[in-house]
């Protein structure tokens, strides 16, 4: 592995030659070269002339696609740098095949003020790794009482607003947030979960939680708020994005809304379409919110990915220190990390099973996240940022938490053997990450 700092200027032409280019935004899927110039895509097409460009020969079997964007991560900085920092999180993003991440505002202090946003933007620029897109809080301190200054947050660099970790519980507040955010073209991302129904639950309400004696969080806690938000989006015309959707009923509500033309989008995490509460034990690396749901819900998520009603795959990367997790299940914080496992999981469980096409996968991981958040990436059309992810769908990998670039190790997937990985990542035309586990990726090494 090599991680390099992409300079912002003075990059010569780079030509990615060969390989299969998949870019749903252009309807492209096939043998195609890609010429990058000055941090942007210059030209796309078969057999492009080399000219002055440095050539990266893409080996057969690899796939060139727009830089992947994880639209839901927690970077913990400022305030909880012992769990993760913007730099370690951005390193993890690159190593996971992502050129950009959108970070949730539940830092300490909460990103509810342009001062905090500015700090995040500055730290991300200093790291000079992946793009970091801050998400501002909907309400001050995410306490649900006083709306934040969306205009100032937008100006400072926020791409959306959310109180993630907490729902926007008050329906009137959600209504006003949707109305007000629409003025700035920002979606409101909601962690949908009725607090009274969640109560002090720590696992999905079902036979497994009952057996383990864990307090349940019913699927309906999510579904009722998703249904509410679809109705409020319809009422206001504002864009709502459902974070980490996990139950079948929520998907039904989203589908029904989309059929009526409501501006609702949604994401699902790899763990919610791969695992279910059947895997649940007292291992706190299986504790996250929303919790691992029933198999019916998991299967519904797979269906929603295939039929197009789910817009994005996001990881909800939630780093926690081992000490925080080495406690009683009830006491452990919710959340698992996902940046460095997402691509292998997606390729193994969705592509190689024949469940989704590569085009659909790229749509879920790049095209749609960019569209929902209004980001410049998500496409390799001429003029787009030269952010590129190269996938090695056939690479055999074993998840090793000990080798993660993230500061955290809280994953339930440690030791999993999977097929598929990110081979390399270019940010702004610069090779920012090369996966030396994928032998064929040596071509990306910059002399």
């Amino acid at each position, binding site marked *: 592995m090599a991680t390099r700092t992409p300079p912002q200027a003075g990059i010569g032409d780079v030509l990615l030659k060969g390989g299969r280019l998949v870019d749903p935004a252009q309807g492209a899927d096939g043998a195609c070269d890609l010429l990058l110039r000055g941090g942007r895509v210059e030209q796309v097409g078969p057999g492009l002339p080399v000219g002055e460009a440095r050539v990266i020969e893409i080996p057969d079997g690899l796939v060139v696609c727009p830089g992947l964007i994880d639209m839901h991560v927690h970077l913990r900085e400022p305030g909880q740098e012992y769990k993760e920092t913007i730099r370690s999180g951005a390193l993890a993003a690159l190593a996971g095949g992502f050129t950009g991440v959108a970070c949730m505002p539940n830092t300490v202090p909460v990103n509810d003020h342009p001062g905090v946003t500015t700090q995040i933007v500055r730290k991300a620029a200093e790291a000079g790794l992946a793009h970091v897109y801050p998400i501002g809080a909907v309400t001050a301190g995410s306490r649900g009482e006083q709306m934040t200054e969306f205009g100032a947050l937008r100006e400072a660099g926020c791409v959306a607003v959310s109180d993630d970790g907490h729902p926007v519980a008050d329906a009137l507040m959600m209504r006003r947030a949707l109305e007000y955010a629409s003025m700035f073209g920002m979606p409101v991302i909601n962690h949908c979960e009725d607090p009274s129904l969640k109560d002090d639950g720590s696992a999905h309400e079902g036979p497994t939680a009952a*057996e*383990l*004696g864990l307090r349940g969080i019913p699927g309906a806690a999510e579904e009722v708020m998703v249904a509410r938000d679809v109705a409020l989006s319809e009422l206001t015309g504002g864009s709502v994005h459902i974070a980490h959707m996990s139950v079948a009923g929520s998907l039904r509500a989203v589908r029904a809304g989309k059929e009526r033309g409501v501006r609702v989008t949604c994401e699902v995490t790899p763990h919610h379409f791969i695992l279910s509460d059947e895997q649940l034990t007292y291992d706190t690396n299986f504790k996250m919110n929303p919790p691992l749901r029933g198999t019916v819900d998991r299967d519904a998520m797979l269906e929603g990915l295939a039929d197009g009603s789910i817009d994005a795959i996001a990881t909800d990367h939630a780093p926690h220190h081992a000490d925080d997790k080495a406690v*009683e*299940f*009830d*006491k452990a914080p919710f959340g698992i990390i996902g940046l460095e496992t997402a691509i292998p999981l997606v390729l193994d469980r969705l592509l190689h099973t024949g469940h989704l096409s590569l085009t659909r996968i790229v749509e879920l991981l790049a095209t749609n996240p960019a569209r929902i958040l209004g980001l410049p990436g998500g496409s390799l059309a001429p003029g787009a940022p030269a952010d590129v992810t190269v996938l090695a769908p056939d690479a055999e990998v074993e998840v090793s938490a000990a080798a993660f670039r993230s500061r955290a190790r809280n994953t339930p997937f440690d030791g999993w053997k999977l097929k598929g990985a990110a081979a390399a990542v270019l940010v702004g035309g610069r090779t920012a990450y090369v996966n030396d586990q994928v032998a064929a990726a040596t071509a990306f090494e910059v002399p």
Partner: protein
Amino acid sequence: MTPRTPADTGPAAASGQLSRLRSPHLLSAADLTPEEVLLILDTAGAMREVGTRPIKKVPALRGKTVVNLFFEPSTRTRTSFEIAEKRLSADALNIAASGSSVVKGETLADTARNLEAMAPDIIVIRHQASGACHLLADICSSRIVNAGDGMHEHPTQALLDLLTIRDHKPDFARLKVAIIGDLLHSRVMRSNVRLLTMLGADVWVCGPPTMMPAGIELQGVTATSSIDAAVEGADVVMMLRIQLERMSGHFFPSLREYHELFGLSAARLARARPDVIVMHPGPLNRGVEIASEVADGPYSVILEQVSNGVALRMAVLYLIAGVSEGVD
């Protein structure tokens, strides 16, 4: 040399040739096989005799250190374990959360590591979090006995309940057992359901729908909110305590109505078999889940349960310690 166990001295050991438990820990009733359950009950049967001696002590656990680590208030269970340990000549010490480093913010894992460093042989743990004993078993090389973990399990309570039932009704497979009350929060119910269904009993669980655990019927029981249906023809009626300390409201409107709908009165009990036995793990909420006339009445075996607790826990500690000498 064949190790002698108390079971050898008991009448017709139903557990057959089995003389050891497979697991060094007792975390969940679900970890036991039917043969192991019977071994524990047979061993407890023999241990009962120790309690009738003028000097109620055998050297079986001499030189063994047993720590009773109690994070929740407990009178019955802690005393029962402590008496059991003393009758087996173990060195027993009690740690209560209120007098420990827990109040200084020490994590359970650190408490466990520190205890571990002092090399106790057995740790008996009572904790408000489900799975706390599993966390301890992961960290410690001591043997762990679960004395109640949150809403998960209370295996020694269920085993002593079985011992009590067997004294009156030896064939579990012929019994209808009704477990009635706050099912959702009850670790006693969970352990009993596992053991009783394992031994072939017809188990009914009864409580208001608000306190019915999701998917309880998957555990091989009949679930109902009709106490009359549950009690009808029952051989054993096991009442559960309304656990006000584990509740966060909204489960039922009032204790009065709860008693009206789910309290065990003498009139209701008349639906059961004439030789019914009434059980309760304690502590009682008189006039709530059980009327005093029933708790103190002729069918009640509630105090037998308590007596049996000592012998049963002696058996569990003895078997868990893997002692191969006899009790004499």
